Structures are given as C-alpha cells and as structure tokens.
C-alpha cells in the first residue's frame, strides 16, 4: 500500500535527490551528451515542489498529473517530455485514488513506462532511461505474481534492484537514441544519465516507503 502522503513525500524526496545528484548527472551527461541533465532535472523538480501546496489535498492522480505538467513546462530537452509523460500517465492511471494497492502501483508503473516508450520510441538496449525502467517494472510485477500478500516494500526493492541493474548495464552499450547516439562506439563505457535519473527516482520512492 502506498498512501497519498507517501506520493507527496516521494516528489519532495525526488527533488532532494536530484539536487544532491545534480553535478553527478550533469557529469555523466557531459561524457556522452550535452552536460545539462542534472541541471534540467533539478530545475524541474524544484518547480514540482513549488506547485505541490496547491494540490497536496487532492487525489494521487491529480498530484502526479501536476508533477507531469510542471516537468513538461520547466525541464526542456528530452527529459522534459519523457519524464513529463511518465508522471502524466502515472497520474491518469491513478485518477481519483488516495491509496494505491500493489496492483495499482503496478498499473502506475506500466502506464508510465508505456508513455515513455510512445513518446521517445526507444527500445530496450538503446542506452536510455527505458533500460532502467523496463527491468524495474518487470521485477515489480514478477514479485507480485500470484501473491497478493507480498508487501509493497519487497516488490519495490525488487524494482529498484532491477532499475540499478538496468542502469549499470547501460555502461557497455552503444547509444541508439538521443544525443549520445551521435557518438557511436564512443558512447560505450559510460553510464546513461537518463537511466541513472530513472533509478534515482524509483529509489526515492523506495526510501519513502521504507521510512513508513
């Protein structure tokens, strides 16, 4: 079970984590992109947090949609539409809810990932955020599989482990999407910044649920 208050705490935690990792993400991006990913994500989640007070008492769907709109209008680059779509779709999947069951969380994650796939058209192995998100969503669903008693924390731990594995697996990959794709073989040997921020966001959710 994940409550509305935990979703709000998650978004605040995302902002903290991205502020802490601003330089780290930007440095990863400098190696294979254009050195702005940490800066952009930090700016985006600062905007999300500034708009939270207006929606904090609404349902989870509304809160997540607000986060999506805030990211779309403040991040720019590829991260803006992709993470914006991630949270918009997550919000649409949780409309009207104040609590999320494990099945709701699975639906949220699946809808969010689908949105990213449609908007960005990346496939698994293209060295993008999809490489972290896909194994995370798979691991979450697999942990739940046939066991309604599984607690959310266990499933989230599996999801974050999946994201971490997927993120690290981007290191040897040659990028096929985004600005890193222009480097060809030279993009291999570097961890993808988008996969890294995706891992950080999911890990922030785990941290918040773990504290409950």
């Amino acid at each position, binding site marked *: 079970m994940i409550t509305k208050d935990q979703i709000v705490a998650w978004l605040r935690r995302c902002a903290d984590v991205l502020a802490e990792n601003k330089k780290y993400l930007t440095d990863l991006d400098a190696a294979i992109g254009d*050195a702005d990913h940490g800066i952009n994500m930090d700016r985006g989640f600062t905007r999300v947090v500034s708009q939270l007070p207006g929606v904090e008492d609404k349902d989870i769907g509304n809160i997540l949609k607000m986060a999506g709109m805030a990211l779309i209008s403040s991040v*720019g*680059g590829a991260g803006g539409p992709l993470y914006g779509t991630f949270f918009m779709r997550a919000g649409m999947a949780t409309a009207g809810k104040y609590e999320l069951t494990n099945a709701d969380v699975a639906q949220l994650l699946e809808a969010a990932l689908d949105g990213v796939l449609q908007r960005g058209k990346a496939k698994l192995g293209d060295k993008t955020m999809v490489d972290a998100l896909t194994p995370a969503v798979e691991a979450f669903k697999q942990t739940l599989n046939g066991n309604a008693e599984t607690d959310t924390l266990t499933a989230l731990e599996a999801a974050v482990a999946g994201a971490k594995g997927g993120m690290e697996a981007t290191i040897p990959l040659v990028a096929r999407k985004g600005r890193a794709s222009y480097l*060809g073989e030279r993009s291999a040997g570097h961890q993808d910044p988008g996969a890294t921020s995706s891992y950080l966001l999911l890990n922030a959710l785990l941290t918040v649920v773990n504290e409950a």
Partner: protein
Amino acid sequence: MKKLINSPETFVKDSLAGMALAHPELIKVHYDPNFVYRADAPVSGKVAVISGGGSGHEPMHGGFVGMGMLTAACPGEVFTSPTPDQMLESAKMVNSGAGVLYIVKNYTGDVMNFEMAAELARAEGIKVQNILIDDDVAVKDSLYTAGRRGVGNTVLAEKIVGAAAEKGYGLDKLADLCRQVNINGRSMGMAITSCTVPAKGSPTFELGEEEIEVGIGIHGEPGIERMGMKPADEITEMMALSIIEDDAYTRTVREWDDAKGEWIEKELVDPPFKAGDKVIAFVNSMAGTPVAELYVVYRKLAEICEKKGLTIVRNLVGPYITSLEMQGMSITLLKVDEEMLGLWDAPVNTPGLRWGV
C-alpha cells in the same frame, strides 16, 4: 569560468531583455513563458513561422525574428530545448488565422517538445505543421542514431521560408518549401576549442592544444572524430568533400497529416550534389573563430566547389549559428532553384540578418 553574465540562472532572461531594448522597432519579448516575436505580429493573412531551440546559438533563433524571416522564436535554457508552453503561447500570440509552421532542428528533445506543442496548439484550433531540419552529414546513418542533426541549414531555411511566408504562401505550400530546403542542404562542423555552459561552469569536453574535434553539432557535444590540428585548407577540403560527395540520405520523419488527423511517418531522401548545381555557400563561425579565418575557409571552399562543378550563386560568411564562445566553424551548401534564390534575395529585417530594406 569567466563570462559576461550576472548569474547562470538569469543569463537567458538578461540577454533577452537586452535584445528587446536594442531592437524595439523589430521585436518584442514575452516572459514566462519566454519567446521573442515580431513587433507587428500577428501579420494579417500570413502564416506564422516559429522556430526555437536551446539558447547559446545567437543570433539564431531570436535574432532572426522580424520582417521576412521568423514570426517568433522560443529560446530554451542554454543548449536545452524550449518547452511546449513557450511554443504554444507564442503560436497563440502570432497566429493570424493562417496557421503556424514550426521549424524544428532534429534533436531528440526539440522534436518531442515541438510535437507536444503542436498537439496542444491543434487542440486550441490552430493549424500547425512541424518540419524538421536535419542536415549534418557527420551523422552517417539514421537507423542507429537519432538521425542527422539540424545545424547550419536551419539559418538558410529560416530565411527562405520566412520570405515565402511574407509573400503569402499558405501553410501547406510553405511546409513543402521548407522540406525542399531541408533535403537540398548539407552541413558539417568542427571545433578547435570546447565551450562552457554557464550552469556547468567548466568546458563540456577537453581538447588538447594540437587537437580538433570534427563532426560536432552545435552544443559542445563531442564530435564524430578527434584528430590533430591541420592547416585550414586541409580541414576545409575534408569537410567540403564530406558534404559534396555525400550519398543520397534516407530517413523517416514524422509529420502531421491533416486529413487523417494523426502523425504519419514520411520517408525523405536527400539527393546528392551533382556538377551544374547552383548553391548557397554558408561558412559559419561557432562564435570564437574570427571572420578573417572564415574567409580563409571560404577561399578554399570556393576553389573546391568550382572544381566539383558547383556554382556558388550566393554566400553567407559570419557567426550566425553559434555554440557559446566555441572556436570552430561549419560549412553548409544548399542547392537552390530560382524560387529559393528569389526568396533568399527578398528583403529581410531582423536583428541578426538584414538586407534589401
């Protein structure tokens, strides 16, 4: 980092504010969301031509707003695509009812943000088409990359398409023209130094004293190949031949189909250059390279074009699509027909490009 800025956070806005003060007769600036627009917009009966992209490439795009070129431009943060709210609000502000053409450089972020903006604008009843510019021959294949980047040919496209809008072309005809300019133009760039994004504070990549980076885009991103410094003639020849001898280039782009009411995939092919072609030759500085060096490049480029049977009918030499303070240059060749040439010569009055007025 030494830069004439007050802070990285205020850089884009401070620069826009100065530009508005310097050219009040040509442009106005709207803030939150940020965009530059023609002082006399909306222009009755004319299609609005809007472009945009990360800041740091000035005068492109904001400096090309004015009579005979762009109707509005959306500046993002430095080297970061602008956001859909900027593109939507600027479209609402400058649309005369004749529709809006978004000229979009092919970068993953720009493409996605402009697609979202077009969807939002259509929901508000505005006729919109998005046309991509993807002219960078340093990118060889479109299958395993995000495709060729939009670089120097963007400047030429904005001039020619802007002139056509001024002449009263409708949206569909304007989109056709923009597509033709795109497939007939090719570019390549190189860097002698890196550049420093203000918010990062240190150079995006390190280049040794005797090294150059070839096949760069316009964002200080590493290029396709790093090599030792060479005389200007050798570098110019290598780049000019990459452009002139580039094979037909095929890729799939997404455009809006009004009849079907959905995005459709369209295959476009760039025809290779051939002897007898008339071209506009554009030698561009990344900002840090002085004009005198650009003329050294132009001298060799003209010689190579002549040898290859290409007639340079017009040229543009100077810093027009830059990369902050980077030293380096790009070469663009655009094959033109009489229609494009006439539109190129048509009057233009913008902060960054002005003739015939």
